[in-house]
């Protein structure tokens, strides 16, 4: 079996005196869609932030495509090929959709190819093309999420991490976003999805990690996990 694209081993991190992650092990293979599920405060967001270098790790290892990325800094992580779409989208207020997308390509110097990638994300989410010159934060929640995902792939990542894809969005929009993600995945981008809505996550992902109080409580194929009585009771309401 080839080495996974992303391999996290024994990762511990937190904020100040508060430790959130207590030895997390996680692996993502190239081409997969993997999800991380768990309740509020379990440490999902902290895990993504530690991988992307926004929170300092205290212990453990993060290997990505053969490179050691532990505490490498957010710009080095992005250059290595991990893009992070943050919770709450965090689009830049007062800036157009196009400028937001261009900021996703901030580290790239191949200007002509960036233009081509703009067309590519406009194909993927046509509404963004219509709204290209509109203030990104004045769009609807679903459109903003599309913009945030598109901004993420403007860096041409190998791995796209998305924090809370579905939060606060209508079911039809979530479906539309899911289709978008699958299209992105078909283009060869591996996806790591953090979700509170386990049903949505399991539909999209082939494998899942269940986080509870800063540790991985369970992991496996989503098909198997969705039959697990404990998971069903805790997360699927059945």
């Amino acid at each position, binding site marked *: 079996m080839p080495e996974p694209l992303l391999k996290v081993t024994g990762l511990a991190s937190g904020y100040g005196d508060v430790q959130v992650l207590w030895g997390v092990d996680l692996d993502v293979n190239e081409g997969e869609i993997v999800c991380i599920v768990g309740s509020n405060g379990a440490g999902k967001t902290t895990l993504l932030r530690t991988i992307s270098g*926004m929170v300092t790790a205290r212990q453990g290892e993060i290997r990505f495509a053969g490179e050691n990325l532990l505490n490498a800094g957010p710009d080095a992580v992005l250059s290595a090929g991990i893009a992070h779409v*943050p919770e709450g989208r*965090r689009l*830049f*207020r*007062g*800036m157009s959709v196009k400028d937001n997308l261009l*900021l996703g390509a*901030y580290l790239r110097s191949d200007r002509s190819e960036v233009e081509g990638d703009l067309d590519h994300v406009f194909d993927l989410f046509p509404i963004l093309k219509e709204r290209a010159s509109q203030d990104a934060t004045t769009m609807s929640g679903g459109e903003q999420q599309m913009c945030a995902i598109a901004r993420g792939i403007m*860096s041409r990542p190998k791995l796209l991490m998305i924090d809370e894809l579905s939060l606060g969005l209508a079911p039809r929009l979530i479906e539309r976003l899911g289709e978008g993600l699958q299209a992105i995945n078909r283009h060869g981008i591996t996806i790591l999805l953090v979700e509170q809505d386990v049903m949505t996550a399991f539909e999209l992902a082939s494998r899942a990690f269940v986080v509870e109080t800063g540790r991985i409580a369970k992991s496996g194929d989503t098909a198997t996990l969705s039959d697990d009585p404990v998971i069903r009771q805790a997360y699927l309401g059945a």
Partner: protein
Amino acid sequence: MDLGQVLANGIVLGALYACLAVGFSLVWGVLNVINMLHGSFIILGGYLTFFAWHLFGVHPLLMLPVVGALLFCLGYFLQAVFINKVVTAPVLTTLTLTFGLDMILYNFMTVYFSATPRQVTLDLGSIDLFGIYLPNERLLGMALALLLTGLLFVTMRSSSIGRAIVAVRMDRFAAALMGIKVNRIYAITFGIGALMAGTAGALFALVYPVTTNLTGIFLGKAFVVCVIGGLGSVPGALVGGLALGLIESISGVVFGPQHSLTVGFVVMLVLLVFRPTGLVGVKGYE
């Protein structure tokens, strides 16, 4: 004095004020730092221009890019080495730090350059436009001040570095996720603020005498321009600058020149009460 002349004087002065204040506004808006050094940066730019001309015969226009580059480096250095250490602290901390740095720069300039008012005298002649008398140095200063302010506007709007500066201003967490080195952008922003101050000072020295005694007054004017126009935007500084130029020029005739400074501050106070966002209070840095 007739109205045309008063308005013309006001517009010339206002263009210089816009250029003088826009860097202060940028730094305040993006870094949330009230830069007490701004007045000294202006005078330093003016002095460098004057002494290069006076001692070595360097033409002020040739000196303008040199002053810009030197002040940018000074600003970048001060931010990267000192201010970045406390940039996330409450505004009083950074204000105190820049105040301390200003004391050093101000006294350095007074000791080595003295406080004697200095002005570059180019004698470029003047034009007479329907009875309005306009010395060509003033027109040149105004044109260059507007050009520099316009260049900053274009840079902020349509360059990669401009987008990064605005992104950092709006959301430094998300900006870091875009791979933007936030501390480096802070240093570049402070450098640009110093560059605009220095070049504004160089242009001032073509039109009015500059002296270290004016650092506080220039700082005050930058403050007034920001409040009148609206903080953190180039159009805001332009509107605020022109407004202050016209206010000073008109009130100088109506109440006497000794009161023009006071009137500027009074207008600022009135605006703070009735329209605290300024005349063109925009949210984004456009």
